[in-house]
């Protein structure tokens, strides 16, 4: 026996699932459409790496340099940043 029923507002138990799906969809759209591209990431990490090197924040400088090498493996300037950060660390 089937009992189709429909209410105008969803029951309370449904709300978390609806909210989770909605948030997930929104985040996915943001990531796909508004996420930073490679050039933006390079600029961001280069700026952060230089700031960290100046401030003596070794871990941050090393990590930023490593990320830059990952983004642009053929750019010698990034390896130079990493060498500078390693030298500060020693």
């Amino acid at each position, binding site marked *: *026996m*089937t*009992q*189709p029923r*429909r*209410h105008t507002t*969803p*029951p309370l*138990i*449904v*709300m*978390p*699932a*609806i909210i*989770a*799906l909605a948030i*997930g969809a929104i*985040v996915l759209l*943001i*990531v796909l459409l*508004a*996420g*930073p591209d490679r050039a933006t*990431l390079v600029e*961001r*990490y280069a700026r*952060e790496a230089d700031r960290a090197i100046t401030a003596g*924040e070794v*871990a*941050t400088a090393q*990590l*930023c*340099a*490593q*990320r830059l*090498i*990952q983004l642009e*493996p053929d750019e010698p300037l990034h*390896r130079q940043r*990493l*060498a500078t950060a*390693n030298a500060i660390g020693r």
Partner: protein
Amino acid sequence: MFFVSRSTDPAPAARGDAPLVDAGEGPRRPAWTWLAVVAAVLVGLSPLLLPYFRDLGQRPPYAMYPLVIVAAGVLAISRLAEVDPTHLRPGGRWIGGGLLGGGLLMLVIGTAAYVRWLAAPATLVTLAGIVWLVGGRTLARALMPAAVLLLTIVPPPARGETTLTAGLQQLSVAASSRLLDVCGIVHLRTGNVLAVPGHRLLIEEACSGINSVVAVSAFTILAGFWRRRPAWWTATLLPIALLFVIGLNVVRITGGAMLLAGTGVNLFEGIVHEWFGLILFACAVGLVLGADAGIEWLGGERGTERGAKERVASAPSIRENNRPIACAFAVLFLIAGAWSASALRHCWPASRLPAVAPLRVPTTVGEWTLQPARADGKDIETTSTTARNVRHWIYRSADGTTAEVAFAYPFTSWFHDPRVCYAAAGWSPGPHVLVDETAAAFRFDMTQIDGRHATVFFADFAEAGFAQHPFERPAEGDRLSRRLALTRRAASYQPTCEVQTLVHGDGPIDPSRCERVRELFLIVRESLRQQVIGQTGGGR
């Protein structure tokens, strides 16, 4: 529970009536005959089934299999209570016999080929055959949900789930990395490692929540059957459930990395890590139930009422007496089981080393000194392994060189090549070369994209003490015989431990340093080997 009768009375007998007396077969026979048949086939299957479950329990995604079996039992009992036993009609003996024969054949093949995975389909097919012989289509339909639920704890053959879990793991980490980029959090992703300034997170299977995928899938299927949802309903709910699991774990990884970067609080260690896993599982279950209610709210038809009796509409026809064939197969299963027990008695030996084995390494080894446990939070390259139990130690030499030693165990089915683990952590490992014949010790070099180098020494030895060498695929024979040789080798593989020693630097490791690390490695390895022999009794 239920009875099988050969009534010639066309009127359906109500439950609770006096037992029918049939001129052809005599009084009703209790179900103990069928229970004895089930017991006999399970005993026959046990030499292959027990190693299967022991292996299943060691695979994290399937560690909850006892709960699934209990849930399937509860589901089966609830459905059986709705079946009117007087309307059960035994199925045809050809189909039932064919299923039993198929199960028996799988038992024989699994034993001959040392493939314990076949125990699962053999058991399901055999039980399906018995169900068919007892109650035909009606009973099979009633117990189908329990069978489908049990399928969730049958992993893909040849450890196929590792490919799936590795893919989901990488997806979770990649998605988290992307989210961290959107949020502007400085981080580095190499393989399954997420690094934030000063900290490294190795996103293992447990951290990525991949272990929850199987559990949540089983729960979704159980909920679908329990609530009498149509097949399309559960089929729609299943991918939604997987999305919830993956999404929750991406949130966990991303949030954990952000918290670590901002405050230094690490949610991926210790008891907090375990509790978070349970909380995530509970949230996923709650969301699945919500999605289920949501589909219902959107106008989905509810399932059939509970308690509706399954009735056979057609008139009674010639009834099958399937007991003889069932009993014959029961005897065959017992014979096959005895042979299987004899053939497999030395296969798949279990590890004797406890999870928290009291192991100690030398405090000093030449110029090397054992360091206290890492409590300073400094960024140290860690050895990588997928073993259930791992111990770590750090040695430091007079010139400041740091060498990390790891002891991982148990490996029970195959020679473990740690290069796979390091590749998953973002390293590019080179080929391994033998550095000590007696210890079967190997060395390989590896690099990271940012120019970091590392050298790893590793050696495997069985708990009995002898060195384990990498498997060499047999070169002779046809494909089948080569395959059988490999499965036989895997079945006889002794529980194995692995010792690793890693040294890293900003450039290639110079040969003199490598040699000193090699000497440290061999001494520590021998010390651990002697302790393992002492704790496991050595030899078998």
